[in-house]
């Protein structure tokens, strides 16, 4: 029971709780207490330190920006304007707030505001749904498309869209990179033939991929009812992110242990059996290492691509906030930053767990 829960915790990436379980179990309380403190309190301390430094930094920036505004008012409009400006800033009046790095408290407020916004939008959505349900039923009976909610998406909706885009991009990357990687990995000549292509395309920036995909998709899909922005951004994400999987797969396939290949030869396995029974299983660990990198690259370029493609998602959320320059825009951008980071971390954790499942212990040999 105890070992099982420790295993589960480790699998979930919560390994730092292990000493706590030992402690509750009454084993070597002192030693485990120290381990727990080290494993979980130290990170906690560093989080507080981070927030403190951030707060101090934000305050310093705030003050310097405020000073500059007052000074500017004095130079341009005289002493009275400077005093007015000072009073205005101190009163917390929105119109004259310095526009700079927001403090942790402001970011927290923005987070709450975004959450409230999400709640109100989802309420509106369900009200809308109720309102049109009858009409939609009629439309369906007539073979027409149902009326859908077209209001502003909430922050959570944006996250959902981003996750969908990245999932589609990842799937595409996997479906392209793994088979090609296997084929290239199997043949020395193909590897030599296509190496230059991989080496050249691998470092190409997401922006260029996006433009390239845009050119093609725009010409191929003429039907205006299809959501092109989703297709464009997920294809671009896939193309940017697939290289790690491609390279790792071909490397895994080409470096299968010679002993395993000898087994295949002695048993006279045919090419299909050889690939599916020997080569693929033997290269799974490397393939999954590649897929893990692909996921993190996909998530990283996604934000930039959404931002550029103006397709809905976290990227365009950040861009719109930056452009509309509302008084809490900066704080919302920071919220988005944390959300992006945390989701990226969680995705990587998930891939790490899958990767660990795939990595067989080679034994002593």
């Amino acid at each position, binding site marked *: 029971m105890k070992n099982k829960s420790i295993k589960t915790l480790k699998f979930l990436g919560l390994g730092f709780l292990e000493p706590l379980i030992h402690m509750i179990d009454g084993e070597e309380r002192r030693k485990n207490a120290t381990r727990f403190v080290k494993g979980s309190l130290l990170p906690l301390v560093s989080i507080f330190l981070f927030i403190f430094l951030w707060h101090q930094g934000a305050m310093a920036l705030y003050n310097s920006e405020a000073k500059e505004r007052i000074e500017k008012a004095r130079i341009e409009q005289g002493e009275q304007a400077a005093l007015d400006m000072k009073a205005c800033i101190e009163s917390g009046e929105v119109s004259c707030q310095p526009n700079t790095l927001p403090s942790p408290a402001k970011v927290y407020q923005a987070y709450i505001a975004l959450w409230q916004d999400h709640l109100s939008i989802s309420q509106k959505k369900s009200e809308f749904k109720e309102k049109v349900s009858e009409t939609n039923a009629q439309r369906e009976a007539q073979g027409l498309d149902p009326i859908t909610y077209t209001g502003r998406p909430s922050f959570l909706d944006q996250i959902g869209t981003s996750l969908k885009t990245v999932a589609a991009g990842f799937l595409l990357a996997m479906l392209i990179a793994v088979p090609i990687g296997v084929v290239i990995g199997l043949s020395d000549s193909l590897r030599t033939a296509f190496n230059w292509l991989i080496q050249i395309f691998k470092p190409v920036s997401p922006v260029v991929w996006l433009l390239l995909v845009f050119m093609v998709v725009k010409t191929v899909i003429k039907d205006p009812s299809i959501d092109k922005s989703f297709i464009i951004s997920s294809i671009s994400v896939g193309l940017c992110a697939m290289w790690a999987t491609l390279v790792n797969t071909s490397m895994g396939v080409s470096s299968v242990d010679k002993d395993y290949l*000898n087994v295949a030869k002695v*048993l006279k396995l045919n090419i299909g059996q050889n690939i599916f029974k020997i080569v693929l299983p*033997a290269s799974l660990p490397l393939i999954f290492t590649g897929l893990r990198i692909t996921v993190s690259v996909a998530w990283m370029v996604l934000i930039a691509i959404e931002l550029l493609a103006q397709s809905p998602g976290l990227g365009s959320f950040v861009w719109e906030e930056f452009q509309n320059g509302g008084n809490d825009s900066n704080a919302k951008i920071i919220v988005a930053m944390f959300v992006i980071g945390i989701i990226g971390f969680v995705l990587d954790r998930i891939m790490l767990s899958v990767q660990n499942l795939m990595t067989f212990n080679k034994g*002593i*040999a």
Partner: protein
Amino acid sequence: MEALLKKVDYQVMPHLEDKPVMLECQGLKKVYPTPKGDYVVLDDLKLTIKQSEFVSIIGHSGCGKSTLLTMIAGLNELSGGKIIVDGLEVRDAGPDRAVVFQSPSLLPWLTAQQNLMIGVNQVFPHGSKAERVEICKYYLDKVGLGNDFNKRPSELSQGMQQRVGLARAFALKPKVLLLDEPFGMLDSLTRGELQDLLLEIWQKEQITAIAITHDVDESIFLADRVIMMTSGPYAKIGDELVIPFERPRNRKDVLEHPDYYDYRSYLLNFLNH
């Protein structure tokens, strides 16, 4: 000791006297290209082995023993000469020549039974699934792993892995069993156990076997005939020694045999010159 200096004489091995030839190497040559020019490992090597004979090969490290064995297995191209197994010239690898290498080289993502199964499926494609499973279980049981069918290699000790390796080789029902220092990585206790095990199964299956070893005692204990290779380059068969101890053998009888130390010093003498 002079009495031992005779060349192979099947008179001394009555049980092999009228057995047909199973394996023949004629004028075997192997050249490895190296940056400093061609390196001739084996040159004009001749070797004849009879059906159900057990031959061991000794020689200094690097003389070309593994090269010879992998060539017989069909895993290494010949630079010249011919290898004939059971009347047919060897062209590529095949399950009629099972190989056991020093490292067990089991497929780590498969269980012990699946590791045997993949070969048994190839060799007995017409048997029913149940029959094939039966074959795997039979051989795993034979090597003492009756309770470990579903363990993966990582859950087995080195010695147990090599047991699976032996079971996998025997389960193919090969014509020739090729062993390249099969117990070289094991501690001496485990090595002894596995030697006994190998002889026990071999006795039952009557398969022609070639075992490379660098352990003189092992070579005597296992074989009907010990083949001594000269040091490379241009290595060939330097000498042969028939070990006429009766079978089935047990270690104690072999060690206590009055001729044992003569054979042993003959082999050591060859290696030291």
